[in-house]
């Protein structure tokens, strides 16, 4: 750009034409508006409410307190993997990963039988996550559970 600045270059350039110049101004204005749009759209989208709730993966509201009856359980998502919230027949709340330690199947709660079952190979865990029988090599990882207002919160730490 600077190399074109030599005064010698100032000569018969048709851009000196006033009509051309008003077209240029209009074009500049139009493209500038377009540009502003392209800048503002992502910014406003960013400010908008995000696609999902801002919960974190190490802490999740697994259920409402009112939803859980004694001797029941529910599977909820904890990050990208399933986890299980259990309310024992005595009314104690517990949470485990719902992934069987044998071959990664999702486990289920068996009402009235005091155990958690993996249907893939009939692995059974007790209500402390310990292996009762079947092929699972290890206990289910247990999470911390606590109540917060209406919600039952499960957290990793």
């Amino acid at each position, binding site marked *: 750009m600077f190399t074109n600045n030599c*005064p010698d270059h100032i000569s018969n350039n048709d851009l000196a034409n006033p009509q051309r110049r008003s077209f*240029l101004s209009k074009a500049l204005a139009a493209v500038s508006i377009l540009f502003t749009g392209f800048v503002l759209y992502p910014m406003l989208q960013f400010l908008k409410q995000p*696609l999902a709730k801002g919960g974190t993966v190490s802490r999740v509201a697994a259920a409402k307190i009112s939803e859980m009856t004694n001797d029941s359980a529910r599977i909820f998502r904890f*990050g990208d993997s*399933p986890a299980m919230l259990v309310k024992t027949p005595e009314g104690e709340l517990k949470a485990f990963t719902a992934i069987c330690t044998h071959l*990664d199947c*999702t486990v289920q709660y068996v009402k009235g039988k005091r155990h958690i079952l993996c*249907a893939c190979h009939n692995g059974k865990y007790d209500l402390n996550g310990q292996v009762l029988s*079947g092929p699972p*090599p290890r206990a289910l990882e247990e999470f911390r559970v606590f109540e917060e207002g209406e919600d039952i919160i499960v957290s990793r730490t």
Partner: protein
Amino acid sequence: MNLKLNFSARKLICFCLFTILILAGNTDRTFAQQTSSCISCHLEEVDDDHTELVESFMGGVHQKRGISCVDCHGGDASAEDMDDAMDPDAGYNGAPERKDIPEFCARCHADPGYMRGFNPNLSTDQYSKYLISGHGRLLKKSGDKKVAVCTSCHGVHGILASNDPLSPTFTLNVPYTCANCHSDSVYMAGRDIPVTQLQEYESSVHGQALLQKGDRAAPSCAGCHGSHEARRPEPSGVANTCAQCHNYVRELFVSSPHKAAHEKHGYPECEVCHGNHAIVKPTDDLLYSSSAGICADCHENDSDGMRAAKEMRSSIDFLKAHIDSARNVIELVRFYGMDTDDPEYQIRQAKNKLVQSRALIHTFSPEKVAAVTQEGSLLAQEANAFGQDLLKQYGFRRKGFIFSVIVILALSFLLTIKIRSLNNNGDSIQID
């Protein structure tokens, strides 16, 4: 010599202090042990074997529970003189012969009343189990003195509890303990059993879980053969042994037509397809493949059985293909930086179905397998659709990127023209 004696004396003092420290509970037995002339004399012996004997005894479970030399060997530990102490009249019975060792140990270990005073949880049926074991029967019936007796696995004086990681009977050590004899081709010569079990076991799923991952839930030799009662299993017992852990698959098998067939021919169920010591992770090729497949061992080509195998294999392949294609799409979009938590959750569920369907092979019913693979395929397809959707979103990003660059370049171009037109205005460049 003098030096050696001094050294031994010092050793004795150390051991006494050590024993006092450990057995601060101060029982009568402890006292008896400390004043034992067996220990003092055997420690003073120049012979290393003797000192080693005492040293190993000192760390063992018997010493910890307060059992003294006399409790097993008899004799008089209070006698100063060696001959008095080891006088058969004083009850000294010396070291038992190898063939008599089981009875030697059983004097206490088969006596529930006596054992109760030490460890109420320890069973007292080891001796009776040993008598029905392969080892015990050979010893008793044919007088075969090479078979394992108690000390072969447990050691002699320094016996450790089997939950001690240093014990030869600790689960992780059991395969090597058995292999001491069973992998020794010279020692095992003349018997009709192989010597390759350890090697095979090490390559198996169980061996890898136990020996490499240290997973003590996986069976060692004793997990299937038993320990004191160890013997070659009956064909009819094999499946029940496997079902200790693999109960679901076994249930499926029992409900299948194969159960009757195996009974008819006296086949050992699980072992027929999966083998025994070298049980490797089963592949889908084991079920059916163009070249191999275990079913072909019994079933003719073009028979109903082979057709069923082929159908089950194709159901499983169908599900695998769906999972793979969904995973490919999702890996691509994840590479593009998109959020793939949702479809990955679905793929996980589809994989559940794959594992389930593989277990269901043991029903040998193509319909039952297909029902589950269908469910799984639907899940995988959903994940795939989700991935495609994300791919579209990525396309939107891409378009946005291209258009915004075009707009920026257009603006820049117009600005350049504007700058040049300003230059042409004349008043821009000034020479001072």
